[in-house]
């Protein structure tokens, strides 16, 4: 065990423990917050392996952006503050998921551990990765994939806006297509194309009552 091994073991323990809690906790907001812990552990692992730039970008984008986005989505989908009882899963499903996860991990371990020479393999010298060399390659060799990723981000931005702002079209379609509705099969066809909740968001909770928003 070298000092780098010890540092890596500490970060890896944080990552694995955080990930395990993130997928097993019953409180939805806690799951997102445990994901922060797991990703900080992964960033520490990457730092120990000598790639500082990747570790910094991991913290900035994953924890700074993605986890905040997941928290926003949890709030917008009305996640409960306490334990999530509406999405509770039976015990057999948890056990089955744990077995499938353990099988996947065992398969990967069986494939990867021999690559490192087994658990008693020799230690190798860590290579120093200079950020300057990474920048030179990123804007030299990898410049076209880099530009393509810019286009991908723009496409994701536009797609997210288009998908999440589809309400105006749907409301207009309700006004046009909902009027000549027949009680027969045409009604079922229309009901699939129609948003269930065209009214204000407060109607979503009233699942058992007739929705006043659909009468517009």
């Amino acid at each position, binding site marked *: 065990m*070298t000092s780098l*091994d010890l540092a*890596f073991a500490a970060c*890896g323990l944080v990552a694995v423990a955080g990930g395990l809690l993130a*997928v097993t906790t019953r409180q939805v907001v806690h799951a997102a917050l445990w*994901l922060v812990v797991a*990703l900080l552990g*992964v960033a520490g692992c990457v730092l120990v*392996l*000598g*790639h500082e730039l*990747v570790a910094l970008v*991991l913290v900035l*984008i994953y924890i700074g952006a*993605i986890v905040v*986005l997941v928290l*926003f*989505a*949890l709030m*917008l*989908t009305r*996640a409960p503050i306490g334990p999530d009882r509406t*999405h509770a*899963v039976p015990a057999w499903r*948890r056990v*089955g*998921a744990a077995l499938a*996860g*353990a099988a*996947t*991990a065992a398969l*990967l*371990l069986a494939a990867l551990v021999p690559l*490192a020479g*087994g*658990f008693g393999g020799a*230690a*190798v*010298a*860590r*290579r120093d*990765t200079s950020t300057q060399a990474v920048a030179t*390659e*990123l804007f030299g060799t*990898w410049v076209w994939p880099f530009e393509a*990723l810019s286009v*991908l*981000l723009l496409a994701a*931005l536009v797609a997210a806006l288009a*998908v*999440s702002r589809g309400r105006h079209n749907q409301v207009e379609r309700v006004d046009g297509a*909902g009027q000549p509705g027949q009680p027969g099969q045409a*009604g079922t066809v*229309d*009901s*699939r194309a129609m948003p*269930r*909740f065209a009214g204000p968001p407060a109607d979503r909770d009233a699942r058992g009552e007739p*929705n006043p928003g*659909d009468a517009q």
Partner: protein
Amino acid sequence: MIHLVGPYVVAALLVGIGVMGVLARRNAVLLLIGVELILSGALLLLVTSGAASPSRWEASSVLPLFVITIAAAEVVVALAVILAVFRHGGSIDLDAPTPGADEADGPGVDG
């Protein structure tokens, strides 16, 4: 000096935990957490590949950056779809029937 078996073990465990999260969750937003864990395991493997031996074109640093970028784009689109489904059907339960199918006998349909 570092033993490379440590990163491999951590990456395999992260992927296994992510698979477990994807299979066990019914909340569509929490399913994404499992996907993020799987991606972080893959990212750790990519970084490990360049930790000891020199990597050509610094691919062990550049490819993880690309993975992070693609993961960000994926999460943005996935959350937009989840929000649209929530607005359409009022639920993000992955076990529920498709959000349009349970409206046929629902109370909110005029007809």
